[in-house]
Structures are given as C-alpha cells and as structure tokens.
C-alpha cells in the first residue's frame, strides 16, 4: 500500500484506542458503575467545555499571559545563568545553590508573601518563572558542557578562545537540550501561573478551578482540567516537533550522559581527589548558605516588610532553637516533616521504578513508544493542583493519594531522561555488539542499561524535590496530614514563624536530597566517562 495510506493507518490505531477508552468511560459512568459526582462522563465534560467556552477562552488568555511572561523570564534568566556559570566558575559556586533553593522552595507557601510584595498579577508571573527556571538552567548547562572534549581540543588547537569555543561548539551542542528544556518548561509555567491564581484574581484557569470546586461541579472541574491539559499538550507538542528535529544530533552526544558540573573528567588518584572535593564542597556550601541567608535578610529589610508576617533567618532560628517553646516547636515541625518524607519517598521510588521499566520497554519496542508518549504527555500536562483533590477522593485521604501524586510527578521526567539515556547508547558499542551476534536483550543489559545509569541518578536527583513538593501540595489540599497541612493552617492563622520555619526546613531537606543524589550521580558518571572515553 502507499506510504500515505500506511501513515494514516499508523495514526489510526492510537486514535481508535483512545476512542475505545472514552467509550468505556462513558459507559461506566452511564451505568453508575463509577461515582458520577467525582468522575463525570466524557460527554458531560465536552458539553461543559462547549457551553462555557467564552469564559474558558478568557481564562485561558489570562493564564497564558501570566505563564507566557513567566516562561520567557524564567527561561531567559536560566539560559543567561547557564552561560555565566560556564564562563565564571566563581559565579557558579556562589549562585548555583541559590538556584537550587529556588527549585526546592515550596512555591505554594510563598505565594501569600509574593502577593504582599508585588503589585497586580506579578506574583503569578514570578511563580510561573520559578517553576521554569531551575530545570531549564540545568538542562541547558548540561547541553553546554556535554561536548566531546576532542572537539574542544580542536577548537583550542586552531587558536580559538573561550568565547569562540562557546559560539562555535557549545551553543550548537546545547540547542537540542534547550528546546527539550523549553518543551518541559511550557507546562510547568502554566502550572505555576495556575497555582499563583489560587491567591485570587478576576479571571484565569486557576480562578475557574476555584469556582468549579466551590460549586461542587465535577464536570466543570474536569472541563477546566481538560482545557488546561489541552493547552499544555499543544505547547508541549509544538515544541516537541522542534525538539525531534534536533534530537538526532543529540544522540551521540548523550554518550557521556548528563554531566554536572563540568564533565570533562579528570583522571587522578582516587582517595585524595575525593577528599579535596569534599573540602571544596564544604567551603562552597558554607558560602552559598551565607549568600542565601544574606539575600533573605536583605530582601526583608529593603522591602521594609513587617516583621509580623516576614520572618528573617534570626526569627526562624529563634522559633526552632533559642525561643522559649523551641523544643515543642521543633518536634511539631520535624514530626510533620517525617510524615511527609515517608509518604513522598514511597511515591518517589514507585515512580522511578515504573518509569524506568516503561522507558526500557519503549526503547526496545518503538511501537510502544508511539502509543505511550501521548498518554505520558497528557498526564504530565494536567495541573497537579486539580488532580490532587480528585485523586484523594478516589483513593482516600491517606497514603494512597500521596503515593499516587508523588509517583505521577516523578514518572514523567524520569521517563524522558531514561528514554534519552537508553537511546543514547554509543552507536559504536551497539554496532560492535550486533556484529558479534548479540541479541536485543544483551544489547539492553550490556550497553543500554549501563549507559543509562547516569540518567537514572539524574532522574532521581531532578525528581526528588518535585516529589517532596507534590506531597506537600496534596497535603495542603487534601490529606490534612504532614507538612503541607501544617503550612496551610499556619498561613491562615498568622503563625508566620512556624510557616517560615516549615518553608526553610523543607527547602533545606530538599536541597540535601538534591545534593546527595548529585554526588551519587557524579560518581556514577565519572566512572562511566572513564570507561567510555576514547583514549
């Protein structure tokens, strides 16, 4: 048959499968097998979207405006920072932890503070930028750095300086990474803007969500979800097209895996190198802690924020350690933290395992990739803030909901990184294996899996703060246990010392997880680099 007919048929299969799922869903609700109050039928959702289309269009426009500005600001700042960190080592050491802290901060808890400090809709733009900044920074930085050292040597040999090295080689190398980062950033910016809208406003998808939930209208809630998901999906898909064109060129380069920081590894005596690294790391961490605390204190002073709701580091210290009730306060804060960590960890590990397994299947059987990717995109695109309460009604107020949301949050980035890592097996090694008669399974175990090991640790590192924040989000909105619940109660009853202490503790723990997993990742990567590098 003609190529065109084959292409259409190829498209037909997943569409048919989607139609089948929708039909089944419709039937289940129609037969009251599923609680109609919680899960409306597809027909109801479509009707709802259509009848409210004028309002949703307006809401979408508002939210996209906030998200768009935040996306531009966050991405722009991220790219600039990545280039700066590459060229100026000191800047990297001093400012990187600040960047990580921006990622680890529980955004929903700082929203009320942002609203007091910034005029109009700026809090929403800032939140959108916050959601985009760090992941874009790390992805672009990886792209800038994971250049074949041979090529760098060649540029230098021909008399190139640092900046021509940048222009001619690194920037081109980073392009696929940039586009992939932008692709992931678009839904994140949308999510950030929606969370910002929970503060209040006159229009927006977040506002529509508030109203839909106030009306106890699950068709309307789902309609807003559908609209947000569709927008997210379109943004992701459009950027995905661009990414795919450049992805081919990223394949060979990924052989050295995501490397952070500088991946042009050095060989050297093992133990003393690690000791030196430990010392320099400690110095760096102390410096950045000082910078973070300094910025925090200075911001409060410069903006002249009332000490009633703006607590500085000294205030947090007093609350947790030196105040009269410090012991009780500490056990309150750390007790809830323990609850959240436990729950998040379970979901996190589940998400890692499921995503890795699925990535393996997708790489080994390309047809599965075509079927699964759209679903994965849809799941990732739908705003968590809306899924959280729906999950909790279906799965209960307990651990199942936390597990589910943490798994979902961990799942998608892991899937993306693992697919990239598994696909990025060096072509030469694969050729060699096949030439020696190796089969698919040994291709997987001997070449692809080991190549993807850095990707696994990278996924774990990237997902860990996200899982923690997702746990807090669902606790904030549904379960009533753990850190999230404590934070919302604190913010609504003016317990600002407690709220800021909670935020500081969560950020610190998130940072520790990120750094710890980062050390593991570097260890694994450098061992890999040592094995793969042509001598």
């Amino acid at each position, binding site marked *: 048959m003609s190529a065109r007919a084959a292409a259409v048929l190829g498209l037909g299969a997943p569409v048919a499968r989607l139609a089948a799922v929708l039909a089944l869903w419709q039937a289940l609700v129609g037969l009251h097998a599923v609680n109609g109050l919680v899960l409306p039928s597809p027909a109801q959702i479509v009707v709802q979207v259509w009848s409210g289309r004028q309002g949703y269009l307006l809401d979408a426009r508002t*939210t996209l*405006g906030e998200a768009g500005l935040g*996306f*531009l600001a966050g991405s722009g700042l991220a790219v600039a920072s990545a280039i700066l960190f590459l060229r100026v080592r000191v800047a990297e050491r001093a400012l990187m932890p600040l960047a990580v802290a921006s990622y680890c901060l529980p955004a929903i808890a700082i929203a009320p503070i942002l609203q007091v400090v910034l005029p109009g809709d700026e809090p929403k733009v800032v939140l959108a930028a916050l959601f985009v900044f760090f992941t874009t920074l790390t992805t672009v930085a990886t792209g800038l750095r994971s250049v074949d050292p041979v090529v760098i040597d060649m540029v230098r040999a021909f008399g190139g300086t640092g900046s021509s090295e940048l222009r001619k080689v690194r920037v081109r190398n980073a392009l696929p990474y940039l586009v992939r980062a932008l692709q992931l950033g678009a839904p994140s910016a949308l999510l950030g803007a929606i969370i910002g809208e929970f503060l*209040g406003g006159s229009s927006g998808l977040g506002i529509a969500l508030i109203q839909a939930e106030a009306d106890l209208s699950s068709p*309307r809630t789902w309609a807003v979800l559908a609209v947000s998901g569709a927008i997210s999906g379109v943004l992701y898909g459009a950027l995905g097209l661009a990414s795919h064109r450049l992805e081919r060129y990223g394949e060979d380069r990924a052989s050295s895996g995501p490397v952070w920081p500088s991946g042009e590894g050095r060989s050297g005596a093992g133990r003393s190198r690690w000791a030196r690294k430990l010392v320099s790391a400690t110095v760096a961490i102390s410096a950045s802690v000082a910078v973070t605390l300094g910025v925090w204190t200075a911001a409060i002073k410069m903006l002249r924020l009332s000490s009633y*709701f703006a607590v500085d580091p000294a205030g947090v210290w007093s609350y947790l350690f030196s105040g009269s009730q410090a012991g009780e306060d500490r056990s309150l804060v750390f007790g809830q933290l323990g609850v959240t960590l436990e729950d998040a960890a379970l979901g996190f590990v589940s998400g890692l395992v499921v995503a890795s397994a699925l990535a393996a299947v997708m790489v080994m059987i390309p047809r599965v990739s075509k079927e699964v990717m759209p679903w994965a995109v849809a799941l990732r695109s739908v705003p968590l803030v809306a899924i959280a309460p729906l999950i909790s009604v279906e799965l209960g107020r307990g651990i199942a909901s936390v597990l589910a949301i943490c798994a979902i949050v961990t799942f998608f980035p892991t899937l993306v990184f693992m697919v990239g890592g598994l696909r990025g097996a060096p072509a030469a090694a694969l050729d060699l294996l096949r030439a020696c008669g190796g089969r698919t399974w040994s291709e997987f175990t001997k070449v692809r899996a080991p190549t993807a090991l850095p990707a696994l640790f990278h996924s774990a590192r990237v997902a860990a703060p996200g899982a923690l924040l997702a746990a807090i989000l669902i606790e904030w909105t549904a379960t*009533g246990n753990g850190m999230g619940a404590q934070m919302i109660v604190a913010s609504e009853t003016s317990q600002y*010392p407690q709220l800021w202490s909670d935020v500081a503790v969560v950020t610190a723990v998130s940072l520790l997880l990120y750094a710890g997993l980062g050390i593991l990742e570097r260890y694994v990567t450098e061992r890999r680099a040592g094995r793969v590098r042509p001598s």
Partner: protein
Amino acid sequence: MADMVARVEESGTSGASRGRLVSRREVIKGFGMAAVGAAGGAALGLFGASPPASAASTRRATRSARLGSATLAFSWIDDVQQAGSYIAQQRGYYLDAGLAVSFLPGGDTYAGEPLVVSGKALLAMTSPASTAAAYLEGAPVTIVGAQYQKSPVSIISLASAPIRTPAELVGKKIAVEPNIELEWKAFETANGLTGKVDSFVTSESPSILAAGGCQGYTGWTTNEAVALEVQGVHVHTMLFADYGLPGYYLTYCADSTIVRDAHGREQVKALLSGEIRGWQVQTSHPSVGLALTLDDYGKHLGLDPKQQEIQAVEQNLLVVSPVTKAHGLFWMSATDTAAMLKSLKLAGTAVPASLFDNSLLAEIYGGKSVLA
C-alpha cells in the same frame, strides 16, 4: 589530527550524518525554531497581559476623589458574597464619600491581615479569629465593622442523617476546613466535646459529605450548604453561633496605625460609608446585587445563577439583625462584642476588647441607623 579535520569537512557538506558537528543549515533551523518559540511566548505574554477585564474593574473614577484612592481586599473571588460592594462601586457611593475604591479579589490562599499591614489594602475582609491571631503575633490590626453579625460556620450534615445538636456529634466523623480549625476546637470546648469527636482537618470540598467521606462538614450556610442543595444533596445545618459560640464574621480589618492617623481615619470612614450604603440596598433588594454579580463582576466565572440567588438571600439573614436595625449595618454592640471575645478566648486567642473598634461606625452614623 588529519581524521579530525576530515570529520569537520565532511559535516560541513550535507546535514549531519553520524558526524559530530551540526551543519549550518540545521543550526539556522534550530535557532529559527527557538526564535519562533520565543516569539510565540512573547506574543502570548503580550496577548494575555491585558485580558479584557469586566467593565466594572476597569472603571475609573469619573470625578476627582478628595481623599485619594484605596483598595478593599475581598476574601473570595468575584461572586455574590461581595454584592453590596459592587453596588457601592457601580452607584458611586465610595466617590460620594470622597474615596476612589478598587477591589482586590481573593481566592483559596487568602491572607487578609498581611495585605492591610503592608498597605496593599486599606481594609480587608477577614474573620475575627484570623485578626485575633494576627494581633497576638504582633500585627498592628483592628476590626472596624462586622458585615456578618452572626457567623455562617455550621456543621453541615446530610438531611437523611442530620446532626441537630452538639450532643449528636459524639463519635461522628467530622471534616474540618483548615481555617475553621480554631473555631471548631472552641466549639468543642464550649460544648464539652473535646476528644469525643472523630474530626480531621482537610481542604477537600463539601462533596466529601456527599461521597460518604464524613458525616458532618464544617462549612458555611450561605454558600457551601447551598451548593450542596443545588447539586441535589439535601442537607441540614447547625450553626456554631446558635450553640455556644456566638460571633461576628467577615469583619473589616484595618491597620490600627492608619485608623489613628487623621487622613487614614477619614479614608476608612469613607470606605465604610460606601459599604454601608451598598449593603443597605443589597439587604433590602438582593436581586440588585445578584444581577450586578452575574452580569458584570462575576460574568465570566461560570457562577451558578441558582446557587447565587439562594446565597444572596441566605447571607442577608446574617448581615441583618435586631442590632443593625437599631444602630445600622456592621454595628458591633457591646453585648455582641463581649460574647465574641468569650468565643475567641475559648479558641485560645484571648484578645482585649479594644481590638473591636466601633468608634468609626459611631462617627459615621451619628446616632442614626441608616445612611442616606
């Protein structure tokens, strides 16, 4: 070295084979796509940056306001809960008093006291419990009027299994909203129920009641209970205020330093005058504010007209009382304030009577009970 050079030459020709370098054409394409992406983002940003606001929120003062401009912060999004304020803005009641007022809609994650203390709002709609907590944390806040003379907080239960008295709460599963937790604890204390009720804090919506996740839900009679009814879930409500925990709600919170300042005091009084006149209309003709909400301020929020209509009537029952009939809307009588303080003490937030400052209302009304 030679083979490196060869690789560079090779990649320069067609697109990248399995070579290491990207061809110029592909780079241009890449930059092009990135540029398109960025342009798209910029376009979205500009496109959405000024969404067509409803006529009301772009309303500018048509005459100069001698007292300047100020912001009133709402605790919720634009629905009929703020009807009286919409009337006041639309009919120019604030401007009559010399103040140009703009509104700051609230939402889920709302904290009114920081807005007032930071100067972002002149007045904020909050609750006495919330303002008391802020006061105890050192915030310079004060309450200058009580929109609801009676708190709308109640135990909402299914009509098929109603909870009619506090005694019937024993052993039941009760879902408590986070910002009601303190009042709930006070209610338990007031009725000797501490430790006898299986209560849990959750941000879930009242549909948890319909889904069987609890037997009672601490919610408002004005909106949440009505939303359930409109969805076909028949409910019974038991007001906290009727059973041991009397008190105001939706109180006007101001910065106490501003209230003491001559100009600030005049601004607050001007805002309150506008509010009084707007709510005078709303309490006698609820359909006026309802129409304004549905057709203008809350036009694109997807409000349920049926629910809003019922709410408009329900909330008036809490705004109007024998005290307001005698002294004027939002009045905080000595007796009611004393009862309020007692409830706050039960909730663990004991505050001085001076937190409730009725003097501004007294000055505004000047002995009358209605503002012309």
